[in-house]
């Protein structure tokens, strides 16, 4: 019981923090919020195989019951993907700030006019 309570509370706090930060206006805070949120999601996925202790992780002749290996594989996949996505979001946010001079997620259109056609920055040579 205490294990479940601890685990659920941790997920709840992470989600609350993640949602709060995700709703902020600046990209840095939003990225932090998304990171917290994805931590919570990973923990949640892990718990979907039930929280158990003292069970054999893989085949063992002495074991009578096993821990579910699938959620661990899912979490691993999810961690890799969210890590990549977060890294991309950070770089993108930085680049957007440098080019448009605003780190607001909504942006103010004054600094960024759609009609100004995007300039060509790199043109591969023949």
């Amino acid at each position: 019981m205490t294990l479940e309570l601890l685990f659920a509370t941790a997920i709840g706090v992470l989600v609350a923090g993640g949602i709060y930060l995700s709703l902020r206006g600046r990209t840095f805070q939003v990225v932090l919020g998304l990171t917290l949120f994805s931590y919570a999601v990973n923990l949640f996925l892990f718990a979907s195989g039930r929280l158990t202790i003292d069970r054999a992780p893989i085949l063992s002749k002495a074991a009578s019951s096993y821990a579910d290996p699938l959620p661990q594989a899912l979490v691993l996949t999810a961690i890799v993907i969210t890590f990549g996505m977060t890294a991309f979001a950070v770089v993108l946010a930085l680049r957007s700030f440098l080019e448009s001079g605003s780190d607001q997620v909504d942006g103010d259109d004054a600094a960024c006019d759609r009609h100004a056609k995007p300039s060509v920055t790199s043109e591969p040579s023949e």
Partner: protein
Amino acid sequence: MSFAAHLAIAPVVIPALAAPLALLSMRRRRRLGVGIGFASCSLMLVVALLLLNAASDGTIRTYEVGEWPAPFGIVLVVDRLSAIMLTLVASLSLIALLHAVVTRTDRKGWHFHSLFQFQIMGLNGAFLTGDLFNLFVFFEVLLIASYGLMLHGQGPARLKAGVQYVIVNIVGSSLFLIALGLLYALTGTLNMADMGLRVAAIGPDDQGLLRVAALLVVSVFALKAAIVPLHMWLPRTYAVSTPAVAALFAIMTKVGVYSLIRVVPQIFGDDAGAAAWVPAPYLLPAAMLTAIVGFSGVFVARELSEQAAYAVIGSTGTLMIAVAGWQEDTLGAAIYYLVHSTFAGAALFLVADVVARRRLSFSDGATPGPLFQHRQGIALLFMAAAIAATGLPPLSGFIGKLLILQSVADAPGWHWAWGTILATTLIAVIGFARTGSAIFWNEARIESSDLSPRFSKSDLAAPIITIALLAALSAGAGPATEYGRSAAVQVMDRAAAARAVLGEH
């Protein structure tokens, strides 16, 4: 296993091989990279047509990756609907690639061709997989590639829209993972067919959780499909993307629609207890709102590309009105309209680009500008694309809308659906007529200092091919609708899918 049995995984393997090859050859031998892109797309089209032909006999082919038996390993499923979607992706990707190469937008960055191939790999995988977690993985593949493609060409406008697009999709992916975790905890499986059998055995205590999980999954798919109120990310993203990329993105919202058509009947069907047909009460009003918002956007948009983006939303709304009926008839009509609306959206983006390139500083804004080259021809193309997007005869949009109207005629609340579809069509017609007459019929007398350079007609090829495909879809409407309907029958037959995937029990 024979060679033919391995055909099912070819749509994933071909782009996965072509992408790194294109990446390696792009720096030194640009032409080779382009050639690899075209070869890969053509090969995929051949494979897709073979699968389309094979699936027409009604058998559901499965491919067990690594020969791991079905509920444990990952399984790919080729039925009629998957085969239709694969063919759609392959033909659309050829058109988009052609336009990118002809207009030289693929030269604005090093990685266009490899990103393009990864995008197609994600799309094909999502349409093939029979495993819910695998669907998530392929979603991520197509998303990360779409981030790169969307930003292709760069510039502050794209970066700003890109930040929003990426953040919205990361949130969507997180929600998808939560739903997956819940479904796995409840059913102990991730295989869609297996899950469809197991939801019936869920105890009364867990019905609430099941309902939450079902609604979460549906909202994630609705986000991908850009259904109101989850559509906000779409117009800006699509309007600022490179036009060839935007044309390819016309199929991205269809991934969400496809997932709904695939997952809801199979998992949340009649046996699913509290989650049986769980999106049904919300989906029809949301779909009607989507159609209204989308086509109103067509009416007020100030540029052709923006108009095309709203037309994509509107057509998704019309499509979802049919899907929300969850009957064989309505799904059959929806599948025909899905194919049509993908090409129609792509045609609009391509025509918008052709106009924008020739009008220079006037771009594709709906304001009178100086005369530009090939005006009459492009005006005809625009008219054809607009006819397709609004659903007027003689192009396939008319047939699609007629089928949808007919199929929902027996449903409760049909007059709402009819009213919405007919009214939004009128709004869209007026909207396209307004921009069309501003751009093609009015001429602004301008002291011509910016003499437009001579354009070759080659960039008209991609829009013409798209319109020709739409014409073919109208001419072959008989077989096409028949195929669509039998695909819908197959999707609704849960037991047959379970037998095919899991073997006899």
